[in-house]
């Protein structure tokens, strides 16, 4: 029972990290219709940058926030390259993000080397019903809840958030009222970068990362995001939490190397289910 509880809470924490990553993917896709394959890179850059900032003496909190800001700046750079030229198709932008994700490997290896790195998070454990859970796990869950609440408030209460939603809903009408859709796309990339960065700084103390950890992260983030057809952050959150718990249970009770298989299998099942559901809906609409 204590093992189960431990895996459950740790899994929820890992799932929260995936949820942050997935929400970044969803934010960018909703506004620009681009699947951003550089999303995992934002987490890697922020995780490694936070470690560097801490090692030069920046205090906890400030180092993590600064690393998230760096990820936001990297997001802007990726956005400028991917969608900065008016008229770039979503497919071309997707290839650009994929290329940038791989190009970043060289820069990351030059700066941080190729060995996995971690940085200390919130130290200590908490005992719940005989299970020892790292305090960092609770921090990840708490921060994720706060970020999702802030995102909800941003998109439903602020003028800028509503303008972003307007671009997602109807880019032509958004242009008609004078909203610069390309600029809003760049805002989405900055947000996506910061959300990916938040995932990176929160997960690095729980799971060491290296330059190529983005593959594992993007696989999980994408698997979570496809549950909501890359458009619904709430469903992405549910998908991410399910994935995090499932993977931690598999790693705990069976074999850690099966974790990615779980993510890929889940993604496949969801995509098959969604495509069959869409066909059924189309048939229904055609009647």
């Amino acid at each position, binding site marked *: 029972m204590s093992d189960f509880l431990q895996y459950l809470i740790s899994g929820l924490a890992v799932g929260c990290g995936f949820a942050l990553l997935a929400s970044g993917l969803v934010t960018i896709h909703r506004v620009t219709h681009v699947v951003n394959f550089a999303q995992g890179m934002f987490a890697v850059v922020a995780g490694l940058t936070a470690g560097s900032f801490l090692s030069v003496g920046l205090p906890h909190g400030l180092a993590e926030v600064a690393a998230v800001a760096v990820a936001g700046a990297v997001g802007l750079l990726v956005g400028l390259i991917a969608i900065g030229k008016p008229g770039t198709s979503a497919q071309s932008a997707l290839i650009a993000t994929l290329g940038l994700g791989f190009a970043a490997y060289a820069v990351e290896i030059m700066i941080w080397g190729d060995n996995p790195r971690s940085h200390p998070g919130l130290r200590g454990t908490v005992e719940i019903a005989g299970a020892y859970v790292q305090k960092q796990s609770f921090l990840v869950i708490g921060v994720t809840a706060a970020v999702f609440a802030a995102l909800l408030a941003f998109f439903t209460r602020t*003028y800028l958030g509503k303008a972003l*939603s307007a671009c997602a*809903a*109807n880019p032509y*009408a958004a242009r*008609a*009222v004078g909203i610069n859709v390309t600029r809003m796309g760049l805002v989405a990339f900055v947000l996506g970068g910061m959300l990916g960065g938040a995932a990176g700084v929160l997960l690095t103390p729980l799971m060491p990362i290296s330059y190529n950890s983005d593959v594992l992260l993007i696989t999980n983030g994408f698997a979570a995001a496809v549950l909501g057809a890359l458009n619904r952050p709430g469903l992405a959150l549910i998908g991410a939490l399910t994935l995090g718990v499932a993977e931690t249970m598999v790693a705990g009770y069976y074999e850690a190397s099966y974790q990615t298989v779980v993510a890929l299998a889940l993604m496949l099942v969801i995509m098959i289910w969604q495509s069959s559901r869409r066909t059924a809906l189309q048939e229904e609409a055609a009647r």
Partner: protein
Amino acid sequence: MSGPVIEVSDLVVRYGTATALDRVDLTVGAGELVALIGPNGAGKSSLVNAVMGIVRPAGGRVRLNGRAALVPEGRQMFADLTVDDNLKLGAWRRRRVPGARDTARVYEVLPELARVRGQRAGTLSGGQQQMVAFGRALMADPDVIVVDELSLGLAPKVTAGLAEHLRDLNRERGLAVLLIEQNARLALELCGRGYVLEAGRIRAQGTAADLLASEEVAAAYLGGPAGDVAAAKEAAMETAKETAKETAKETAKETSP
């Protein structure tokens, strides 16, 4: 304000190798109602997009003397946002002006919208959505409003009601209107002057009365020979007023809790 609010000269719009507009000249004076009619594919929407800065012209010039706002073809709602949010986004260009996002002035002009202000725009009827599109354009505090296909997909009496609103806005607020319409009779009966656009070129222009009386225009767009223009115009005005009253009553019924 002196001079035209919209001045288009020698405008050329191209998509790749296809020429959508070929050296088009058009003006809309302050407080004037101008119609632009033409068949499908004539380049009407390209002209709208060029005037609104949505597409970049390949040649020529578009000069706006004042603010222009667009009521786009097909209403183009932000479907998941409320009516109030749709209206507020209409003030995007003036977002830094204090009070620019206050929707009360639109509800004053279009009271039918006040009853559905909290409703998601995607759930409204076509006529109500067109009214939201009007309101959204008014939020920009425009000097000229460009209406792209007022009647598209709407019942004739709903269209007539909206046309009456447009006439009121022109009469009471001095708002200039460029009305792009496939329904030539509606457009020419509403406006004082008009242009006929075909295959990317202006084929005819003049007062609405002249265009209505033209055999060519009548044959191509009005479904028959030109008739007694003044009588037709008067009859249409009366019908529009009647149907506007009916539409307002129906909207009130539809939206009352």
